[in-house]
């Protein structure tokens, strides 16, 4: 791959990576496994980029590769767990990510603003969950409360963020 193609791919990947990462996570709700798959996706994209038809959008191509690798990883790692989606629903999930609509962009822009409105205790809990990748039962052990309580706290925190983003999303769309 020449330098120009490398730069083109870097740009396309930078734009698409958040969406592809989310799509993989929807199939594999485990950060580490999903991030491993994400890196495999990037490797395949590098290897196969010569075959990419530049006249077509990049994101669907990347999502297609991500889908195959995510499903393969699921088969390898979690043979006995049932995939949440049927093929039809998975198609719909993939299509929804392909659209990469304004709401997703709004989330990215507004998340930090909305996080700034959360109490410190909530932020700490989110750090436990997302930075340290503690599942609710693990966080419950650390915090000395029940797993159900952690689940409820996490849910309330995310609901608050979702409401905040919804409330402010119109502003971001106007910025576009």
């Amino acid at each position, binding site marked *: 791959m020449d330098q120009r193609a490398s730069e083109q791919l*870097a740009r396309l990947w930078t734009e698409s990576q958040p969406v592809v990462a989310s799509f993989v996570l929807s199939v594999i709700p485990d950060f580490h496994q999903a991030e491993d798959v994400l890196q495999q996706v990037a490797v395949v994209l590098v290897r196969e980029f010569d075959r990419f038809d530049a006249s077509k959008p990049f994101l669907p191509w990347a999502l297609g590769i991500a889908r195959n690798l995510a499903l393969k990883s699921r088969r390898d790692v979690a043979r006995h767990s049932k995939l949440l989606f049927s093929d039809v629903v998975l198609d719909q999930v993939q299509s929804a*990510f392909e659209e990469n609509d304004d709401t997703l962009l709004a989330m990215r822009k507004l998340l930090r603003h909305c996080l700034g409105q959360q109490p410190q205790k909530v932020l700490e809990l989110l750090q436990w969950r997302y930075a340290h990748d503690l599942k609710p039962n693990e966080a419950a052990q650390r915090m000395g409360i029940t797993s159900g309580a952690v689940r409820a706290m996490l849910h309330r925190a995310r609901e608050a*963020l979702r409401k905040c983003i919804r409330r402010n999303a119109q502003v971001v769309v106007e910025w576009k």
Partner: protein
Amino acid sequence: MEVNTSQLIDDYLDGALDESGAERLRAWMEADPKHVRLFVRHVYLHRQLREWSLAENVGKCLEVGELREESVLAVSPDERRPARRGSWSYGAVACALLGAVAGSWVTWQIAAQRPVAERGGMVAPPAGAAPYVATLVSVTNCRWDQARSTAALASGSSVRSGESLHLLEGVAEMSCALQNGGMASLQLEGPLAMTLSSHGMPSLLYGQLTGSFTCDYDEFTLDTPLGRVVVSGDASLGIIAAAHKVDLHVFSGTATLELWATGVRGGSNQLTAAGGTSLNVHIDTEGNVSVNHGESQESGFMTPAALTASRLPISDEYVATILDAKPVAYWRFERDVDGLMRNEMSDRFHCRMNGNAVRWHPGQDGGSVEFGTTGGPGYLISDDTLDILTDSYTVELWAKPSYFHHGTLFSLLQWHAPQSPIGSHRMVLEICGPISGLTSPFRTTDFHPGRLRFIHECRTRFDVDCFSPDPYSVRHWQHFVAVKALSQMHLYLNGRLVDSKEATGPLPSGLRVLMGQLLPVSPQIEDEVTSRLYSGELDEVAVYDRALADDEIRHHVKLVRPNIKATEEQVIGDPR
């Protein structure tokens, strides 16, 4: 129902969904495509929270850098996050995001080629060798990846076996004491990852470092993805490591690279480089190893010689030309008068030095101002305010960044204490950092690694910014110009117009000049106080209340870099 399904989605993403919940969620999603879209938004938020939390962890490290704490970071020996690459090769910076991931795959291929006993990264030390004692002695403006570096920070502690350093940006110095009195000083330049094996042997996963060694009775070894670098005696060298290649530049002394793979075409797997020479070893995805020999390039590394090699010969003619162009302010940094950098054009807009990290730097070609001489804040600020910059203005300066990092060179801000300076910027000229491997949607510069950035605020809630398409150089003097001309803004790099944007709206009055970092120290701000610290030098900074013409800018560059050809579109600074 929606609240319940929202909880179900959260449970699914938290790995806490039981089978009956899964059935309910499955049925709900199959019932209506709109539900799928809602599910997608939940997942997207989940992922964004992950990125935010990792970025927050990194941000906390800034405070450590501000305090200049000696720091030790550790990571699990079971380091399963694949290595990401850094590179001083400017063209490669843009590709690092992909290369990082591709490189990890290559790493696994290489690992498979190592002898079984050596797999897992735990390589036995040479016979008779003792473990190193490594200490992180200084950190300058470092952003650390705490998510990957799991140990707590400990001021003055040693870096222990099994621990690792994941440096996203900045420079850290590590000292290694050897058993027989030998010493190694390693200067780590982010982005970089290094571990210490169970035997205390340093292993560079990716990134670049500069080392100076005094090993009269010792042998210093350092592992790279492709082989082990061995140094004995006195030596000075630079190493750039990625998963698929290693560059070894020997500036003085001798070093050997012992390849993990068998030698090229059956030859020896021990490659020796003497002072002034370099080795470039590359392995492709098929496992084929190629070796190139060349001259060492010290300018690519942070050695004292490299930092002083680039010259900025400012002639009287250049100064006269700038004065004739009638800038509003012109700081030449020829002398330090009680910490004041004088404006040559009038008795206003003199800039005060604040913080320990800024100093006046006398040199062979006259003075300059140097930032980042220590960790923590260091900047120049004017007490007077500029009131005459409106629709058109120009900021022209020469800069020599010490390394790739996110630093603010020059800004105009509408600020007076005790108000918070956050949000008071009206114009910013800055350099972007390297790809750190941890991008954040809130740091737009992450998507322009190694680029020059000019921001002009043309609306109350929206900035317009220009980026250079090519990276700036490090350790070389370069000419940066930011021009605002009525409805356009232009960015010039070494006399070449590199980006233009539409930007309507005048600057307000009452602007203060700030150089060297994004925000002045203020009681109103906390951890942001030292963000975007510039490390490097500035010289010949001029501000005009008009838009300089293209040929004027080129002429200014030619006065300092006369080897530029009239027809040459791209003006190159110092040759490498």
